[in-house]
């Protein structure tokens, strides 16, 4: 059992707290070309995902696990299709709780 390299749940606004660290987020795909994906975070900010070839075909929602490069870019290690019926609002609230009151259960 290893908890030395967790990946924090983030939305667009929380990404800046983890620059250089491992994060996970879910974006709504806006477009993709040449191996990079542009997505909308669950709190309506734009996030660029680079570094890993996206699954094909892409669904509406995409989970990104990787290193936060900047406040709006992630270098992806793992991309997972999260389907078309994912609820971004619930995920956004989870991100806030996992970085706030309940942070000790996550990272």
């Amino acid at each position, binding site marked *: *059992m*290893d*908890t030395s390299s*967790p*990946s*924090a*749940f983030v939305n667009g606004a929380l990404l800046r707290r983890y620059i250089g660290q491992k994060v*996970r987020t879910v974006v709504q795909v806006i477009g993709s070309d040449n191996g990079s994906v542009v997505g909308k975070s669950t709190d309506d900010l734009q996030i660029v995902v680079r570094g890993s070839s996206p699954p094909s075909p892409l669904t509406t*929602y995409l*989970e990104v*696990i990787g290193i936060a490069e900047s406040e709006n870019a992630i270098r992806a290690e*793992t991309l*997972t299709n*999260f*389907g078309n*019926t*994912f*609820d971004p609002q*619930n*995920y956004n609230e*989870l991100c806030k*709780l*996992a970085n706030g009151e*309940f942070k*000790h*259960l*996550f*990272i």
Partner: protein
Amino acid sequence: MYGGEFDGNAAFAGGGFMPSQATTQAPDFSSAFKNRDVRTLLPLTLKQLNSASTNGESNFSIDGVDINTVSIVGRICRMENRITQVDFVVDDGTGCADCVRWCHERQETEEMEAVKLGMYVRLYGHLKSFQGKRSVNVFSIRPVTDFNEIVHHFTECMYVHMYNTMPRGGSIPQATATPRPQMPYSTNPTPAKPYQTGPSNQFPNQFNDQMHGVRQTVLNYLNQPMHLASEAGVHCDVIARDLRIPPLQVKDALEQLSNDGCVYSTMDETCFKSTANA
């Protein structure tokens, strides 16, 4: 349905993941009396599972609750098929855990074949410790197909943590777990009356006295065991006839009682039943 020592009845029907009375009242005896009551099913993050305290090889507890069965949702990041078992590592973002799924029967093998590397899974298992190394002995696993389940799992982890760490008594779960038998407008006045809302109740003897009387009469009528036991409730015209109160007054009284949560309408807006326990 499940292999191994998993007892579905104990895990799912015996109070679920909530700590039983036995766990909270007599933690010292729980290991001596391993019965159905002390079996728990806890949804946990792997960070929580790693931080669980232990007093031996396989007695773990977290938030004051003994860990028996755990529920985990995560992504399979390593997997190795062996002859009698599948070894894999699950990563839920808070940590990684080594897992073993023993496959003796065909059903167990088939269940494991549906699971592939990189998939999100929901699993149930027992936390084991061997030579200081913790692992999960999995007895049920399935792929996550609706990814909202991931959000739900972590939300549930937070809820259960909050429930188990909240001081007992006066808390919200406590109030819902033991419904108060005493209802407002009860026939037996008690010193500790539940709170009441609505201006009509605050001054029962000053305003609207006659109306208050009608409400009380109607409620007493609906609180009769015969009417409490009835599924369909009682039609307002029947109440009016039996009590010899004008139907309009009965309807007004029922509406107010309904607003105060003392009665509710059943099949339609004309049949009513008391909210008191039968």
